[in-house]
């Protein structure tokens, strides 16, 4: 149970950071936290039915459910792509406006368009 509560706290921290932080880098941190919390939830779920890593060899029984782990490899890759693109856009916005503050960026962008 304690693991689930910790994961929930991690998710809420991420969500709070995306919503309330003005610094766009911190928003991206928040997104990463949110994404990784869900990844951990899946892996935790898979481990309910076993103990060992899902490598089928002789003498190994009680493997964990391999499906969530396989899914989460994909989800991690997608999360990394999203973070990379978000950071690239943040860098571009910083070059255009000279700030990471979302309000200042919005003002600077509106002046130009």
């Amino acid at each position: 149970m304690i693991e689930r509560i910790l994961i929930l706290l991690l998710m809420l921290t991420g969500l709070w950071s995306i919503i309330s932080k003005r610094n766009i880098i911190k928003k991206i941190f928040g997104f990463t936290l949110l994404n990784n919390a869900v990844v951990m939830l899946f892996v935790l779920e898979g481990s309910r039915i076993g103990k060992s890593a899902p490598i089928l060899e002789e003498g190994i029984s009680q493997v964990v459910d391999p499906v969530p782990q396989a899914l989460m490899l994909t989800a991690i890759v997608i999360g990394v792509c999203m973070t990379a693109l978000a950071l690239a856009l943040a860098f571009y916005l910083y070059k255009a406006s000279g700030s990471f503050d979302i309000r200042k960026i919005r003002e600077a962008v509106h002046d130009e368009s």
Partner: protein
Amino acid sequence: MMNPENLIFLPVALPLAGAAAAFCAKAWCTGSLAKITEYGGALIGLALPWAFLAAVLPVIATGGVVEGVIGRWYEGIGITFRFDGLSWLVMVLIYSVTTAAWIYSLGAGPRNASFSAVYLILVSALSATIMTTDVFNLFVCLEMAGITSYVLIASSGKPGAALASFSYLLISASSMVFFLLGVYGLYRLTGALSYEGIAQGLQSLPDGGGTAAVVSLALMIAAVSVRVAVMPVSGWLPDAHALAPHAVSAVLSGVLIKVPLFALARVMLLMPAGMQAGALIGYAGAFTALFGVILALSQKDAKRLLAYHSISQIGYVVSAWGAAVHVGVTTPAGAALMAASFLHGLYHAMFKGLLFLSIGTTVDRTGQRDVYQLRGAARILRSGGERIPVTCICFFIGALAISAIPPFNGYVSKTALSHVLSGSFHYYLLTAAGVGTAASFIKLSRIYWPQKQGGEHSAARGRTPASVYISQLFLGGLCIAGGISASAVFAMVVNLLSASGAPVPEVAFYSSANMLKALLTVAAGLILFLLTATKKGGALLTTIRTRPRGFQDLFISFSLAAAVLVIWML
């Protein structure tokens, strides 16, 4: 090798192969070789799928469904694609608009190999989205379509576009995390990811999954609603669609907001609660149609006006779609509703694509996007070398189609919608939205009216490239063809969507009553336009336009939407 099971991977594989060719052109080729490789890639990715669609039509038209597992893995382990009537229709939508928009991008930019490559990956992801049969693969396809669209929006190079792309990325990627949470819930309950597996697993549970299943489904629906831009989670759309390059705007408005919707229908039909949710989303769609058009009417930026119309028109699609999911698509009434919904989605993709391209050409030539400032655009376009006013004519075809004036395709699909929704609550909201649509397009078409004084706008130098005209004429031709062949197309859509062979409802498209309704709508639209042109009306529009909009609102409305969905379904 040529049996249909192997062929169905082509609409996903061909654009990916094309994207690989375009990346090769970027990485290793120079000069004309690079161009040949890139165009060859686009030909593979955008033209060959048409041959595939023609080849499988005989199988699909007789109610056939083709299934295949990638790499011939065991069923249940490998990724399964299913190609049925809905997939065929949605692919026609995808490829007609993306082909036209890519041709347009050759003339108007962004003109480089990396753009073509990302664009082709987007096409591939969209094709996979509609064919996929498991929830996790749906997540992957939606994320692929998402990440390519963020790149394409930002590719216009304007800081505003980068900010719009960033906001869209954050809200959309965060909501997709909640989609993943919904996948987790369903997997935990049923131990399955495929649609059939989930449906069977939920049936075998004593209470059909109970609250956990409902919450999981609500999270998934809310996340996809962000992509579809149903109010209240549509706030990201206007900036993103208005500031993207014109060709990308056409694809985003035409295709990207509709494909997830039709893919979601497959998930929602898995459990009774999903059909309940259909009713709620139908109501949300009808309100979206009306509020979207009010916001559109108040805009002064030409492309932003079109972007708000995308929200409004997706509201039309969603209202009939929600009603169809509510009654179940296998019933005759549900099949007719779904057919009308799809028909409007398809025709909207064509005329909105056309409008974005023609308005894009116009604002590029004139260098002015403000609807209140720009006048005499037809003359400026003529000075740019346009002997026959192609852009102007194409704009009016699109504007008449979206205002539902016969004989253009918008009239047909809106008549079909009125027919299947007649008497319901949605019908009145959609009729009111139709008046607003007519009014705002009277407002927008004023940019082509001749100018009284000789206040010269500085027109851009150089000639407009031929590819711009070809793509506009292609979409314009489709708009007219869709209007003329109304009954035939509607019957075909109904037949493809209902495998059981539901009777095709008789819709008298060109009856005098329907024509009169179109006329009255335009007359009411003209009155509404004249009202908004008064001083008080203008002040009201300015208030609506400059209302405060925040980034947080999107997240709050996302949480509210998910909560309301849960309460509705329980």
